[in-house]
C-alpha cells in the first residue's frame, strides 16, 4: 500500500484516476484505519485529502455554509457560527466517539463510511445538506439522500471524492435537532436516531419541516410525509401521533444485538416526535 498526500483537488483526482488497483480516500482515519487493520479493506493506495485547503476550511457565504470534508468534529464543535446556524448538525457530529476520536473524525468521513447508524446523517438530511463532489468532470453537488445508496456504498464514481458538505443558510426562525437512542450514556452506536429541521412563521405556525431517521433502514431515510403533517399547523398531540405513525411506517430495520425490528420501529416514532419538538422549541426561541 502506498500513502499519498496531494495538496490540490486536481492532484487528488489524478491520483484517484490513475491509481493501479484499489484506491481509498483518507480523512480522519477513524474508520479507514480500523478497516485496514481488520483487513476489511486492502487498498493499493491511500489518498490523504487533509492537505488540500478546500477540505480543511469552514466557509460561510450568503447562500450556504461549507464544511470541508476533512474538518474534524472538534473543530466543527468549536465553530460558534455553524453551531448557531445548525445546532442539531453540530451536536450530531459531536456524538461521534470519544474526545480522541473527535480530534480526528470528520463529518465527511462519517458520511462516506455510509453506516446506516452514522450520527451526522439524519441531521444532515434534515438540514437539507448537499455533498460537494470533485471528480474528473469537475464539481457536482447532490443531496445526502441521493449520495447514500446502501450500507458502505455511496454514489461516488471512480476518480471522485467528497470535498465538502454544504448546508443552506437557514431561513428566519429555523432550527434543527438530532437525538439518538443508545443503551448507555455515551460512546455508543445509535440503535435508532432522528434529525429534524423546522421553520416557523411569526405566529408560530410551521412553514417548512424536514425529518429523517437513522439506523432503521439500509440508509438513513427522509420521512417525506412529515412536511404534509406539520406544515401549516401548530404542534399538537394529534399531529405528533400522526408523525409517529408516519415515521414508523418508513422503517425497515433489522434485528440485531442492539435492537429488534419492533423496538426500532416504535422508538423511531418516539424519537421523531422528540426531535421535532426540540427543533420547534429552538425555532420559537430564535429572534431571527
Amino acid at each position, binding site marked *: *500500500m*502506498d*500513502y499519498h*498526500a496531494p495538496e490540490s483537488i486536481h492532484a487528488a483526482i489524478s491520483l484517484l484516476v490513475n491509481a493501479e488497483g484499489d484506491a481509498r480516500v*483518507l480523512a480522519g*482515519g*477513524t474508520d479507514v*484505519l*480500523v478497516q*485496514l*487493520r*481488520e483487513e476489511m479493506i486492502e487498498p493499493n493506495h*491511500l489518498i*490523504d485529502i*487533509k492537505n488540500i485547503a478546500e477540505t480543511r476550511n469552514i466557509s460561510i457565504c450568503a447562500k450556504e455554509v461549507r464544511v470541508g470534508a476533512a474538518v474534524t468534529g*472538534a473543530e466543527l464543535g468549536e465553530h460558534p457560527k455553524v453551531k448557531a446556524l445548525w445546532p442539531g448538525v453540530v451536536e450530531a457530529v459531536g456524538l461521534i*466517539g*470519544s*474526545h*480522541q*476520536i473527535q*480530534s*480526528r473524525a470528520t463529518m465527511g468521513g462519517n458520511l462516506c463510511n455510509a453506516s446506516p447508524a452514522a450520527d451526522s446523517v439524519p441531521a444532515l438530511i434534515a438540514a437539507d445538506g448537499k455533498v460537494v463532489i470533485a471528480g474528473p468532470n469537475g464539481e457536482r453537488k447532490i443531496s445526502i439522500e441521493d449520495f447514500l445508496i446502501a450500507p458502505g456504498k455511496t454514489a461516488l464514481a471512480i476518480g471522485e471524492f467528497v470535498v465538502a458538505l454544504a448546508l443552506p443558510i437557514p431561513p428566519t426562525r429555523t432550527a434543527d435537532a438530532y437525538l439518538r437512542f443508545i443503551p448507555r450514556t*455515551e*460512546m455508543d452506536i445509535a440503535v435508532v436516531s432522528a434529525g429534524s429541521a423546522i421553520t416557523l412563521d411569526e405566529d408560530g405556525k410551521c412553514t417548512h419541516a424536514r425529518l429523517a431517521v437513522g439506523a432503521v433502514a439500509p440508509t438513513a431515510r427522509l420521512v417525506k410525509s412529515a412536511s404534509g403533517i406539520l406544515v401549516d399547523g401548530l404542534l399538537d398531540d394529534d399531529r405528533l401521533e400522526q408523525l409517529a405513525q408516519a415515521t414508523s411506517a418508513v422503517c425497515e430495520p433489522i434485528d440485531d444485538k442492539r435492537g429488534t425490528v419492533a423496538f426500532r420501529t416504535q422508538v423511531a416514532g418516539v424519537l421523531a416526535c422528540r426531535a421535532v419538538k426540540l427543533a420547534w422549541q429552538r425555532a420559537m426561541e430564535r429572534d431571527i
Partner: protein
Amino acid sequence: MSKHFVSAIVNGDEVEFRCDSGETLLDVLRTKLYLTGTKNGCGTGDCGACTVLMNGRAINSCLVLGAECSDMSIETIEGMAVGGELHPLQQKFLDHAALQCGVCTPGILNMAKALLKENSNPSETEVRFGLAGNLCRCTGYDKIVRAVMDAAAEMRARRT
C-alpha cells in the same frame, strides 16, 4: 512498500524517522523512537491506551499513520514530567493509587492533561465524560476520577 521520511517534533525535540505507509504513529513511537510508554491496547480506537497529544489535541495514536505526522508536534508520556519533577497529574495518580497494572495510565494521563487545558475546573461528570474513551480494567475508575479532580484543584491553586 514505499518508505516515507518524516520529520516531526516529539516532546519538544526534533525527530526524523522512516516508516512504511501502513505503520501507525503508535508503531513508530514504540518501535522506531523506543518511546514504549505509549501502550497498545486494542489498535482500533476503542481503549485509549495509546492516547498522545498531537498539536495539543488528544488522539489515539493507533488511528494515525506515521506518514501523516510530518511537521506535527507530538507529546507522549515520556515528556510529561519536566526536569525530573512529576506533573501534578502524575503525582496525584500516585497519591490516590489511581493505577494498578498501569497499562491504561499513560493514555489516561495524556487525556486528562488535554481536558484540564480546556477546562481547568471540571465537574466530576465532566471528568468521567472526558475520560470515556479510556478503558481501565483494574481500578474501577473512581480513584482515577478523584486523582484528576485533585490534580485540577492543585493546578488551579498553583496558578493563583
